[in-house]
């Protein structure tokens, strides 16, 4: 096991910069997810750590060793690839033992490690099969097994569940969490699926256009997004965002007004916000924090365009008077119907405010949420 330190890492393909000044420290035994949309640089960052890409600048250290320019095989890192990358002509046992045999390990030790990995992943009965004789989930287990047998200091997983169907993905997610709890090895996991990132990771690195947009605990990203990108990217359905104007700004209070707001909204801030009256801002609120109320109580009003009934909850799409559309999540049995005019109330303590540059203005969270954010991810209980 080892910690991973990345300093000022840069990488471009031709004139196109893919990673720009990445600085990260991942703790020993931590499970960290790189999350971001396609093309944000998350896979390039992972491949740079693996030694499959050569960075243009910066350093990568694993524990106390600098590994920036070490060949992949000498980094003591194992990687699980998105498409499994099993050797098609070798049976499972040879797939698992290939790297060990190549490095001159004794047969007894190879057998011990392969059997141990097979027991952990419950693939002992598959050891004599070829990859083409395995299902997607079994192949994924073998790919993970190939990483386990090397007993590396760091696991890298590149979207390992993306080729599995939805049901199997959930099962494998739980198994991965259990595996991390059992091995305690530092793991870095790349995904574009925020559910995977939120459920598996101790901390999540959100990447946007080659820079770290935010690095924090999953709930911190959800409740305290550092900028508009994270606010938009984390949470499903996505956060509702409105262009507003700062009406007034004093110590610890911010008053917002806007074309869509029927009345000004006053928010308590965490210290004096760095903005001036009259400046542009963006107001954000999660759909489940918009409440359908009677006329006169809400800050927003509009026509219900569509109600998506999902059972336990319903998604209500509302077109506001100024033409913008917002979504509210209400309980599944709420009687709202398409074609109705509804009034929506914003819960001030759950609002997020972003300045003109898209950076979040600090807000005081309630004690319960604050405690939840700071709580370390719960380990899987056997």
């Amino acid at each position: 096991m080892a910690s991973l330190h990345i300093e000022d890492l840069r990488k471009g393909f031709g004139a196109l910069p893919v990673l720009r000044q990445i600085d990260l420290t991942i703790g020993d035994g931590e499970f960290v997810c790189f999350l971001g949309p396609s093309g944000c640089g998350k896979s390039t960052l992972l491949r740079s750590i693996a030694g499959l890409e050569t960075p243009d600048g910066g350093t990568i250290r694993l524990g106390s060793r600098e590994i920036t320019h070490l060949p992949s095989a000498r980094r003591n890192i194992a990687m699980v690839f998105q498409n499994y990358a099993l050797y098609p002509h070798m049976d499972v046992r040879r797939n698992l033992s290939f790297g060990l045999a190549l490095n001159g390990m004794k047969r007894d030790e190879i057998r011990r490690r392969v059997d141990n990995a097979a027991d952990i992943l419950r693939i002992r009965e598959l050891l004599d099969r070829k990859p083409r004789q395995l299902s997607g989930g079994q192949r994924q287990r073998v790919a993970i097994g190939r990483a386990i047998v090397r007993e590396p200091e760091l696991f890298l997983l590149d979207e390992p569940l993306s080729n599995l169907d939805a049901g199997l993905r959930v099962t494998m997610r739980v198994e991965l969490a259990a595996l991390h709890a059992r091995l305690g090895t530092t793991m870095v996991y790349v995904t574009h699926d925020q559910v995977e990132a939120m459920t598996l990771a101790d901390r999540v690195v959100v990447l946007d256009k080659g820079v770290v947009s935010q690095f924090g605990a999953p709930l911190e990203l959800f409740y305290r997004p550092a900028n508009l990108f994270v606010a938009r990217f984390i949470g499903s359905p996505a956060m509702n965002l409105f262009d507003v104007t700062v009406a007034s700004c004093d110590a610890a209070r911010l008053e917002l007004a806007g074309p869509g707001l029927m009345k000004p909204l006053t928010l308590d801030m965490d210290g004096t916000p760095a903005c001036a009256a009259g400046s542009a801002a963006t107001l954000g609120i999660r759909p489940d924090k918009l409440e359908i109320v009677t006329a006169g109580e809400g800050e927003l009003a509009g026509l219900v365009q569509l109600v998506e009934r999902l059972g336990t909850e319903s998604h209500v799409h509302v077109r506001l008077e100024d033409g913008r559309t917002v979504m509210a999540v209400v309980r599944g049995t709420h009687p709202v119907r398409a074609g109705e005019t509804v009034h929506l109330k914003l819960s001030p303590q759950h609002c997020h405010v972003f300045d003109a540059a898209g950076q979040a203005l600090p807000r005081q969270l309630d004690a319960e949420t604050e405690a939840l954010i700071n709580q370390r991810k719960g380990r899987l209980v056997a």
Partner: protein
Amino acid sequence: MRKLLLHSALTLLALLFILPFYWTFLSAVKSTADLYQFPPVFWPSEWHFENFAASWNKLPFNTFLWNSTVVVVLSTIGQVLSSSLVAFGFARFRFPGRDALFILLLATMMIPWDVKMIPLYMEFNYIGWINTLKPLIVPSYFADAFFVFMLRQFIMTVPLEIDEAARMDGASSFDIYWRIHLPLMLPGLILVGTFHFMNAWNDYLGPLIFLNDQSKYTLTLGLALFKNPHDVDITAVAAITTLLCLPPLALFFVAQRYIMDGAVGSAVKG
């Protein structure tokens, strides 16, 4: 009905292709009287299978067979290894000028053998290889453009992640070629091996130019000895030709599954 017509047409075509083989075989086993009879005899009155042994023993065909075997086996091994290695290089290494070099390699396919014949003779003469089997073997260890192209297509169908996984497992570039790609492109290698085997086995011009001494002759040159300006020993030519057809035919039947897979695969993949 449509199927019957189709099958009849195909059978007719197959017979058309088999006819020259059958005629050669018939000429080998006919008596001299039957051989020159007109109209031709399609089912001889006597079958002289002893013609095969007699023809074989007229000239030192054991020596010719040994020479052909040495040339074919060694050059096929060379062709398979060198073409696959070069193909691996073009498919997996990134280096400046790679694509231009590959196009240049493909362009060499357009140079006819006749153009290369005299320079090659001069080169091999300069290094003292004339009247040895080396000119027929050694060039095969420097890859063939067409085979390189074909095997490169095979390699490019293998996901790059497999190479990367092997690299993370500690494999060198040669390990990746030898332990991963070579087994994976087995159908392609069999295809290349079979094609090259047939070319080398049937090669007449190469041995004719580079070999002088009868003790170095290959089977094709030996066969030509039955023909001289005054006479042609038709029975012997037909008997040896029939025997010469057997190894490529046997190889094709053994390897036909791979050849068809390989030919179709390289056509539709990559």
